[in-house]
């Protein structure tokens, strides 16, 4: 136990030191920072503070108490400034030392299959392409290695050291004293305000924008798609690196100092920024639904799902509950949005109103769009299978509602709701196409149209293993049967009457003089056949079957009926014509001519009217 004078002496000299550094009192005190000086100076000051604090217990006289309190306040005010100063001087934009973005060499197929314009924003002056990885260098040994080496991506939490350990030590010694003097709140305030502006700067670097919900509603979707991509990248960095590192920093400085301070400091710092970060995703989740938004919304949903566990870890404290809740809410809204969009998409197909028949009976843009869309859906199968849980709202076969097709579920037992939806989409697509086919005046063209489109559907399904697996081979068979049926219908519609001209009946007459064939009837037949064929040829050359194989097959099928019939007709009856006048008027075409003519069919081009005459 120290003799009173020594204690008093110690207190006095401690006071002196503290007063010397009172920045309200002297210019010199304002100009220099204690913690910029040498270790000795720092230690001296800290010891002085400790001494004064200790003396609080021993001092009894009110006057002395007042002095001591006064000294403590001055010391605390000073320490607060020192604290701030240390923080500020080690808080540049975080990126300067620790985060470097580099270009990854292997491109990944873009989710929508469409090339987005390369985004060109300078982050540390590097040009960033679609796939961006973030690399971390702790401390100053930032070797900017070449882009060929493997990079660690932001797939999991990676804390980085935001502040060098020496500074941490100093900060901690200050915090310790402030907290034990009861100045915890001031400490937290300073800490929070400096770290917050650091976070602000980091956000700017990451390109996180301050858009309002109103702003986002007004932006074009293409613009938003780019922003979503950017946001996903930024969010990963924010949550897994920035916020995690802030948490670590708080722990480094405040842990074990007697209060739940490391927690509240952290929350104080990141709550606002976290909310700001999520505001964007939230705004997207409540935007108006339309089909083209599905895939980016799913991307956002998936990114968020991926991040949620880390959000839960980083924001595990009770006071951060609202952030966790918000993140989860946004995820579920995005899921809902996805479901809504799918529903919207189905409606849109059903109601798609264009009444202009596609020239040439070729593939309708609606068909292409829908099939491309559901191919993409099958790419997102993993997510969507979980999200889509209800069956499509099909009409019931007893409803008699002519505006909605119906679909039997019995035979589709055991399929996932997603698969049912995909099948349903194909059902309503056909339903709509059926309506469109009726716009063609020519029934043959209507059949050709259906054949083309259903065939396209089949090809697309076959072309995607995931899609095929979900649609199922049973339904695929049905579809195949359908386009074959359409082909058959077409043939009947066009060729029955043409071939009718080449039938035997009605040409033979009983009579004594003639050879048994009515020449006039025969001439009629030839004329009719020629006219019909010319018509069909002229018309149907302009029709189009885009698929090479299908076109070939149909032509062959036509030929198989037409050519033998004509050949046999010619063979049997040509002599009768040739023995009469002007045979060439009636026998205009040779078999070869017809064979050649058939090759014109379904090419989508008009042909000249002059067929090659028979060259005999």
């Amino acid at each position, binding site marked *: 136990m120290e003799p009173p004078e020594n204690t008093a002496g110690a207190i006095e000299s401690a006071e002196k030191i503290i007063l010397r550094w009172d920045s309200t009192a002297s210019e010199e005190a304002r100009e220099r920072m204690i913690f910029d000086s040498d270790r000795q100076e720092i230690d001296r000051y800290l010891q002085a503070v400790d001494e004064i604090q200790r003396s609080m217990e021993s001092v009894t006289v009110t006057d002395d108490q007042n002095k001591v309190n006064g000294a403590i306040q001055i010391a605390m005010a000073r320490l607060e400034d020192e604290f701030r100063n240390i923080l500020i001087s080690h808080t540049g934009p975080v990126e300067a030392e620790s985060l470097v973005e580099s270009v990854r060499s292997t491109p990944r197929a873009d989710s929508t299959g469409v090339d987005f314009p390369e985004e060109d924003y300078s982050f540390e002056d590097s040009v960033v392409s679609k796939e961006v990885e973030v690399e971390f260098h702790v401390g100053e040994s930032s070797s900017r290695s070449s882009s060929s080496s493997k990079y660690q991506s932001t797939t999991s939490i990676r804390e980085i050291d935001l502040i060098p350990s020496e500074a941490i030590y100093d900060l901690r010694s200050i915090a310790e004293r402030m907290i034990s003097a009861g100045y915890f709140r001031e400490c937290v305030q300073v800490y929070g305000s400096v770290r917050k502006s650091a976070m602000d700067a980091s956000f700017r670097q990451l390109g996180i924008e301050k858009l*309002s919900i109103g702003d986002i*509603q007004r932006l074009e979707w293409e613009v938003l798609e780019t922003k979503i991509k950017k946001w996903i990248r930024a969010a990963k960095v924010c949550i897994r690196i920035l916020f995690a590192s802030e948490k670590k920093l708080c722990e480094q400085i405040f842990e074990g100092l007697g209060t739940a301070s490391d927690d509240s400091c952290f929350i104080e710092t990141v709550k606002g920024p976290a909310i700001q970060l999520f505001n964007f995703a939230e705004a997207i989740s409540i935007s108006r639904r339309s089909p083209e938004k599905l895939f980016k919304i799913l991307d956002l949903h998936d990114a968020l799902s991926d991040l949620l566990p880390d959000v839960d870890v980083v924001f595990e404290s009770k006071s951060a509950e609202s952030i966790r809740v918000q993140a989860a809410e946004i995820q579920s809204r995005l899921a809902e949005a996805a479901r*809504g969009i799918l529903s919207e998409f189905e409606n849109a197909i059903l109601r798609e109103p264009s009444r202009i028949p596609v020239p040439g009976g070729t593939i309708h843009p609606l068909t292409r769009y829908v099939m491309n869309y559901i191919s993409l859906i099958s790419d997102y199968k993993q997510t969507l299978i979980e999200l889509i849980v209800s069956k499509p709202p099909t009409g019931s076969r007893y409803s008699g509602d002519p505006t909605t097709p119906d679909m039997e579920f019995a035979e589709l037992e055991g399929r996932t709701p997603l698969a049912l939806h995909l099948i349903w989409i194909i059902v309503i697509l056909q339903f709509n196409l059926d309506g469109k086919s009726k716009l063609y005046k020519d029934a043959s063209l209507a059949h050709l149209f259906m054949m083309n489109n259903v065939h396209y559907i089949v090809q697309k399904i076959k072309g995607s293993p995931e899609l095929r697996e979900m649609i199922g081979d049973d339904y695929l068979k049905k579809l195949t049967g359908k386009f074959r049926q359409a082909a058959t219908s077409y043939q009947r519609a066009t060729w029955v009457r043409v071939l009718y001209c080449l039938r035997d009946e009605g040409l033979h007459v009983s009579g004594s003089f003639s050879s048994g064939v009515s020449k006039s009837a025969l001439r009629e037949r030839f004329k009719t056949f020629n006219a019909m064929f010319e018509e069909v040829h002229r018309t149907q050359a302009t029709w189009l079957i885009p698929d090479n194989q299908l076109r070939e097959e149909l032509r062959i099928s036509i030929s198989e009926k037409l050519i033998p019939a004509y050949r046999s007709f010619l063979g049997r009856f040509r002599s009768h014509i040739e023995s009469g006048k002007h045979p060439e008027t009636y026998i205009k075409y040779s078999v070869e001519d017809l064979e050649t003519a058939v090759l014109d069919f379904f090419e989508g081009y008009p042909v000249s009217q002059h067929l090659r005459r028979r060259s005999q």
Partner: protein
Amino acid sequence: MPATDNQGSFLNRISIRRNQVVSMDVNHEQELEDLELFQKHVVDRFSDLVTTQPPPPTAADSSPDSALMPADTLLSIAWFRKLLDAFLCCEAEFKAVLIMGRDPTQFAKPPLDRLIPELLDRTVKALDVCNAITHGVELVCHWQKLAQIGVTALEQRPIGEGHVRRAKKSLNTLLTSMTFDDKENNSHGGKSTERSWSFGRRGGGASVNKDRTAGTFRSLSWTVAKSWSASKQIQAMSSNLVAPRGGEPTGLALPVYIMSTVLVFVMWALVAAIPCQERTGLATHFPVPRQLVWAQAMIGLQEKIGEEWKKKEKKGTCGLLEEIQRMEKVSQSLVDFADNFQFPAEAEKVEEVAAQVTELAEICQKMDELVPLQQQVREVFHRIVRSRAEVLDVLDQVGKMSTPVLY
């Protein structure tokens, strides 16, 4: 919430449509009744919110006879919680009136074909205001913490110079923040900077070139683009509010108008009370025709609040929230005390200060209610989002929304 919600309601509405023709008359009666009930409830709830008491005197400007404040003092946190509750109830009823059992094709015809998109636009703005308010509340919490430092310091006995300086520092910071943040975007920015420093430099300020605390308070609060303005949002929300003339076919124009007015009022009151970006020029009255019976209570409230706003606007106000106003007053008084403090303090002075400190402590405690208030604001946010989605759904059904051009 159930994943099937969207699909289910879609089907329900279709079947409702099919049934509509059959039970038209019965439905119509029911609809009228619902409309009347809705109106009546709005009236009731807003009457409830009216208080005839002026804000009670603070201990700072009269004798220390600080009785407990009644919970529903106008523009107090408790009052706002009541207001938001009332809003949620009105909103729920409104949605029922608007959507359930309604023939959706009505939405495609006048006047709804114009009114509904306007309403939707308003809701988007309201959502942004909600977000701004959430951040504003964070700022107020920050002030609460600063005030608490002052309270802790001045509760010490005997009051020493150290305590007083500490309190002064913290309360000065508080007062600076209160004026600074609001005026920051103001055109009289220069003047206010002067004025704020006239509070006296915070004791022990660090070397000037490193002092960025003023700036950091800014970054604490605003997380919207510089161009966003709360007063402009409110302005836009109220600009096309027009009372419907009687006798329109659907009978829905009136409830839409009522609900819109309620929405605008709530948002406006929040903006007036809680600091958020750019509130200069906040409108102080709304074109609600006085003769509308259901609006009387609301108009009364509007006038009171508008008056308060006008009074305070000239000096610059950090927010009309009752607790903020009192906090500002008491803090200023305590700062004055601190400026004139000499150790040892006289007994009566100490007593006076003690009363004020108690009041400040009580205000801080009241401010704990800010957390549930924030949650309520969030609830309002959700509700608006939900209703908006449902209205959009109905519109989609009608096909009035541009059938998405697929290709």
